[in-house]
């Protein structure tokens, strides 16, 4: 591979073109010269798949209040979220939705012409009394409508796009972040973007699990790049397993189906959620519904020849209603389950869906490094979206709060990065800038060993599925970690067959696989050490929440070998900006 590098200078460079990246870019572009680099064309980012909605206490159909939304978010997080960030996000939500509507997002409407809203899991009125209609939506294509609107807006704002550019290394000069090294997938050339501020918005990493709802590109690259430069991954052990993945395929059936009246049934035809969450039933938060489903299966009430899943029934709301509000779900059920959901129930089981934690930031999206003694900023680095953690999701994210996170923290990141770029001058590159990234890509470009992507990725997702998903124990996770170490060793005896400089997917998959193994090790070590159950992290050997010892963020750093995780902790910011703290309570719904 050539080491010829092309250089570019920008005020702000955004890595990632999903909802978070594009919102950051369209805002930053209003103030300064901004580039977006993305592994795929912007409209092909994973945000395009988001279905059910985006939350905001607009109160268009019934009374609602941001403070109730904030409470639901904190309680939903099993009290691990930072309450200042939760207040910031939920207060800003209505304004953000209106801004999206003004730039063209085709929201569904109420009869009076306002933005329509539907109920979603864990969203309640009056601090938990009853379910509330808070999710704004565009049929069941909310993410699609949002991403395209943001893309079109950022083109209009003059954002510079570099599509099918794959980020290899985050660049720094004496602790100051000053750019990113990228590989042009279309022709194999290397580029360095030297910038005053860098925004990471690289999305999630659920491709490490066998059954997942994620796109091929969700491999945790951003986390790996940041961790190799001394940043941590906050709350790494917390993943969201969404209750309604299509059985056998993992593709998502939005919670909006239950919001529109869908119910879950076991083999006896019983609406079992009435037993687990008497107040809000099928609209309990995802961690609770997933675990209830798993218990139904464990106790022999699953459906199908293997009694290993449950049914989601929606036909009772009528075919016309389904085709108007949930047309995408109808299509997905037909293709992936062979079921016409206007007539029959959809077979479902939990699917790995969302990375709750991420690169830690404060609510200004500045990346922080911290431990129990305090925290400091990483100058010039900002992060937003699923790859980041301002910590509004904690141990379990509420449905529709991710799209909200993207627009709120995406916009903040765009503003903050532009402000940072205005106040600081460009820091030059060090002499051998990018050498680590170049060495890494050369290692794989020239890899002529034995093991291939198909083989190792198969083993990785298999072990993560069996030993690190809905139920976890010390023994299983320790075995998992040992297997991950073996897989890591195999990466030194790897084979990239493709030697082409043009669209070399074999090479990109090698780089992604290397990152996936690193993030898998990081989250497994964090999970082993969190000896309690909280939100999406459920341990059979420690089934209760333990606030005395574990009401704190995990922060996984890398040791100097850049391979071995080192698990540290940081205090939860329990103090909101202006209101009172919601103290931890048992979570009943």
């Amino acid at each position, binding site marked *: 591979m050539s080491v010829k590098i092309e250089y570019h200078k920008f005020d702000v460079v955004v890595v990632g073109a999903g909802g978070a990246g594009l919102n950051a870019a369209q805002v930053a572009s209003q103030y300064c010269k901004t580039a977006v680099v993305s592994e*795929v*064309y912007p*409209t*092909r*980012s*994973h945000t*395009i*798949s988001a279905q059910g909605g985006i939350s905001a206490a607009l109160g268009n159909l019934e009374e609602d209040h941001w403070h109730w939304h904030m409470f639901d978010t904190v309680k939903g997080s099993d009290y691990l979220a930072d309450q200042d960030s939760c207040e910031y996000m939920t207060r800003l939500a209505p304004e953000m*939705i*209106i801004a999206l*509507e*003004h*730039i*063209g997002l*085709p*929201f*569904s*409407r*109420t*009869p*009076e*012409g*306002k*933005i329509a809203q539907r109920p979603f899991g864990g969203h309640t009125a009056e601090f938990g009394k009853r379910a509330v209609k808070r999710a704004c939506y*565009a049929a069941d*294509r909310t993410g*699609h*409508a949002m991403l*395209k*609107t943001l893309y*079109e*807006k950022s*083109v*209009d704002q003059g954002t510079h796009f570099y599509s099918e550019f794959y980020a290899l290394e985050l660049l720094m000069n004496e602790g100051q972040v000053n750019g990113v090294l990228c590989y042009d997938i*279309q022709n194999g050339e290397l580029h360095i973007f030297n910038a005053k501020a860098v925004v990471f918005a690289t999305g999630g990493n659920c491709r490490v699990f066998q059954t997942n709802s994620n*796109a*091929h*590109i969700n491999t945790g690259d951003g986390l790996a790049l940041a961790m190799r430069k001394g940043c941590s991954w906050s709350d790494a052990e917390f993943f969201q397993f969404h209750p309604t993945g299509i059985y056998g395929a993992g*593709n998502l059936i939005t919670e909006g189906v239950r919001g529109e009246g869908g119910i879950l049934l076991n083999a006896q035809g019983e609406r079992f959620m009435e037993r687990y969450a008497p107040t809000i039933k099928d609209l309990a938060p995802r961690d609770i519904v997933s675990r209830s489903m798993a218990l139904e299966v464990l106790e022999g009430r699953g459906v199908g020849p293997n009694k290993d899943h449950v049914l989601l029934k929606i036909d009772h709301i009528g075919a016309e209603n389904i085709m108007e509000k949930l047309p*995408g779900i109808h*299509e*997905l059920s037909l*293709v*992936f389950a*062979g079921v016409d959901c206007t007539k029959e129930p959809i077979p479902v089981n939990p699917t790995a869906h969302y990375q709750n934690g991420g690169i830690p930031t404060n609510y200004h999206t500045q990346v922080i490094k911290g431990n129990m003694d305090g925290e400091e900023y990483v100058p010039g680095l900002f992060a937003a979206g699923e790859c980041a953690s301002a910590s509004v999701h904690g141990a379990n994210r509420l449905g529709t709060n991710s799209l909200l996170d993207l627009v709120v923290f995406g916009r903040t990141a765009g503003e903050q990065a532009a402000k940072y770029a205005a106040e600081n001058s460009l820091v030059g590159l060090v002499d051998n800038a990018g050498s680590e990234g170049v060495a890494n890509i050369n290692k794989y470009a020239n890899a002529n060993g034995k093991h*291939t*992507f*198909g083989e190792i*990725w198969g083993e990785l997702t298999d072990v993560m599925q069996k030993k690190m998903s809905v139920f976890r124990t010390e023994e299983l996770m320790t075995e998992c970690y040992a297997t991950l170490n073996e897989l890591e060793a195999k990466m030194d005896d790897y084979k*990239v*067959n*493709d*030697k*082409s*400089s*043009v*669209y*070399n*997917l*074999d090479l990109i998959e090698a780089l992604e696989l290397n990152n996936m193994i690193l993030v898998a090790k990081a989250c497994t070590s964090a999970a082993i050490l969190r000896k309690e159950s909280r939100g999406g992290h459920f341990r059979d050997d420690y089934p209760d929440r333990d606030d005395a010892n574990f009401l704190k963020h995990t922060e996984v750093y890398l040791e100097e070998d850049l391979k071995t995780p080192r698990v540290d902790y940081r205090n939860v910011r329990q103090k909101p900006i202006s209101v009172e703290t919601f103290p931890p309570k048992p979570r009943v719904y």
Partner: protein
Amino acid sequence: MKTVTFEVFRYDPDKDKEAYYDTFQVELRRPGYLLLDALNQIKWELDPTFTYRRSCREGVCGSDGINVNGVNMLSCMTKVEDLGSDHLVIQPLPGMNVMRDLVTDVDDFFNKFITVKPYIIRKSPNPDKEIYQSPEDRKLLDGLYECILCGCCSSSCPSFWADKKYLGPNAFLRAWRYIVDSRDEGAEERLPILNDKHGVWRCHTIYNCVEACPKELNPTDAIVKIRKMLLDQQI
């Protein structure tokens, strides 16, 4: 287990003077096996140098439009068994420059869609709240906003092949999506672009694009309506 023959277009500019076809026997490992599963099987088990695009794997990102036995489709939403043949010829989308194997150059396609100003243009000030839109007005956007930018339509269009500057069905569909939006006030800015000699008049209304669209959208209908609007304006 049933196997199907995949005859796949191959071309790597780094080493091939000309394109050629490679043949693979692909196993259909479960009912409902998708074309994308088959492409992944080829790449992960038979020949890692084979390359193609894909991301969401559920028909919404528009990465994986390909041509199978002469018809454009998304690999991730098509069941191999539904194609009703044991021999499939797999090609990149026609009418676009091939970069390698099934990967085409889509910059031209994206740039054309951008020329029609696909964003809300407002002259009146925005209210503090949302701009009200009746459910009936919102319904006008159905069948338009769902486009996933896969290119299956433009790639099937004879006018798109013949005239390198022809904007193509997708761009017209997108333009119409904004023109009919009750919140938009930009029709005047868009209509001259659509009225250009590479605009809507180049369309022969032969509905290839409608047949090719995996999302069952109707670009030709949008074209006919744009033409009517242009004609009405001239009077």
